[in-house]
């Protein structure tokens, strides 16, 4: 019990002194995770579409060679970036580019660190997403592609209008996965000096050595972020699935107006409106329409 009280006081002390720093960390983590996940999705989509361009023996040899080359390059990209730790990729790119270009291309200052972090996390997410998108595309019934081809759509039109919307819906859980992984894994960007939630923790405990209380704050913060993300994505999925109901559209315009017409009949003011309605033709028309609704339209009447 003593320990718990101590923990609460410590957390209180930390929060009082560093809440702005923690919030900056949360903000940076969120921005990086959201931006990199979106960029990664775009990279993944592009790879997925390029990867599934049909290639038949009838095609021109140059086109076939180019497509093969493209697929090989995408494959290499996916395997390399999925197969190495992101923390190393960060070091590789952040220090590698200046090393090879004698500092001509370098990530200088705060903006340099942001650029490098975004680049690394995006490329890394893209490698995972490329495979998810590919899976999403091949999970769509080939009949959808045939239906689109049969009305004259090109590969790109088929992808954009028919396959991608369906594939995207199917890979939203994957996108969510990647986003949540990114929220947590952006922490490795501390190696190149990016100050996000975890780096904030390192900085703070470096001063006051309150390792555990700070870690508790971190845990709660990360869990809150990821839970919010989960709920948000579920909501998005439900929205994309749309309503299960649909409205029947009345096929002839008169029947529709007749529907609205009959409405006053059911109102408590019916007697009154009849009384004021001296135009007997209106009543007649109303009666006729009511009969039509009940027994159908006499043939040749219109």
């Amino acid at each position, binding site marked *: 019990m003593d320990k718990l009280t101590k923990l609460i006081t410590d957390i209180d002390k930390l929060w009082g002194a560093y809440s702005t720093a923690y919030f900056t960390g949360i903000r940076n983590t969120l921005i990086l995770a959201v931006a990199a996940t979106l960029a990664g999705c775009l990279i993944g989509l592009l790879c997925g579409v390029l990867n599934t361009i049909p290639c038949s023996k009838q095609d021109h040899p140059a086109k076939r060679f180019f497509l093969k080359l493209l697929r090989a390059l995408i494959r290499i990209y996916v395997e390399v970036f999925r197969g190495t730790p992101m923390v190393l990729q960060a070091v590789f790119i952040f220090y590698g580019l200046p090393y090879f270009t004698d500092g001509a291309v370098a990530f200088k200052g705060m903006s340099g660190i942001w650029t490098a972090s975004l680049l690394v996390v995006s490329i890394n997410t893209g490698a995972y997403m490329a495979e998810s998108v590919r899976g999403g595309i091949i999970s769509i019934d080939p009949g959808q592609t045939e239906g689109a081809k049969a009305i004259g*759509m090109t590969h790109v039109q088929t992808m954009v209008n028919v396959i991608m919307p369906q594939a995207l819906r199917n890979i939203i859980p994957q996108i969510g996965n990647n986003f949540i992984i990114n929220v947590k894994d952006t922490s490795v960007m501390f190696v190149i000096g990016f100050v996000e939630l975890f780096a904030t923790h390192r900085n703070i405990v470096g001063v006051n050595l309150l390792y555990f209380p700070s870690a508790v704050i971190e845990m709660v913060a990360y869990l809150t972020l990821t839970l919010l993300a989960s709920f948000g994505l579920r909501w998005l999925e439900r929205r994309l699935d749309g309503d299960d109901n649909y409205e029947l559209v009345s096929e002839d315009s008169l029947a529709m107006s007749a529907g609205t017409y009959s409405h006053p009949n059911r109102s408590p003011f019916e007697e009154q409106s009849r009384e004021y309605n001296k135009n007997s033709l209106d009543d007649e028309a109303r009666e006729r329409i009511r009969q039509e609704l009940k027994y159908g339209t006499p043939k040749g009447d219109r």
Partner: protein
Amino acid sequence: MENNNIFEIRHLSKAFGSHQVLRDIDFSVEKGDVISIIGASGSGKSTLLRCINLLETPSSGEILFHGQNMAGKGVNAPAYRAKVGMVFQSFNLFNNMTVLENCMVGQIKVMKKDRETARLHALEYLEKVGMSPYINARPRQISGGQKQRVAIARALAMDPEVLLFDEPTSALDPEMVGEVLGVMRSLAREGMTMLVVTHEMAFARDVSSRVVYMNQGVICEQGSPAQVFGNPQQPETREFLARFIDN
């Protein structure tokens, strides 16, 4: 080449690996023809139709569409497919769109029509197939027969010169077959050029102008419905028809 032929198919062959599905198919389609292609399962009927629409690449032979060979290299297949409508056994409606959008997307994206024109044109054909009350429904919400009628409207909305039907009623419950065949009958009456792969012998007999009987990848016999059904010349045709009547 001055004639009414929309299609002229010459020496068309198709092999999947070492399996020869179509051998040396020759036939032509004139404007207004309603041709029923009948035959046992695996006789190559569907493959023939899919070759005509270039969903399968023919191994050899020519598909002349208004005298132009579509089975060669460097053919603009999408532009050609836009003029040749196809209705599939499994409907293949776009699941991410409503009934109305299904019938509009081709007009907008392929024919570059504006939305309103496309909408009116789509509504016209949806009305024709009796599906206009369901324009806001999604494919998963309607029955098989309704899906197939929408698929027909989608193909018609592209104003094709010819419609290919690949066993359009085979995936339907018996009570839904009638509504689809009804739509096809009325299309035939209006002079639509149609190629129909079917197991519906009554439809083939009553509606088509020509019946083609296929057996093991070749056209075994063809002629008017009266000839093929009334007085089949080939023993295979007789056997096939007898089997069908027995069933």
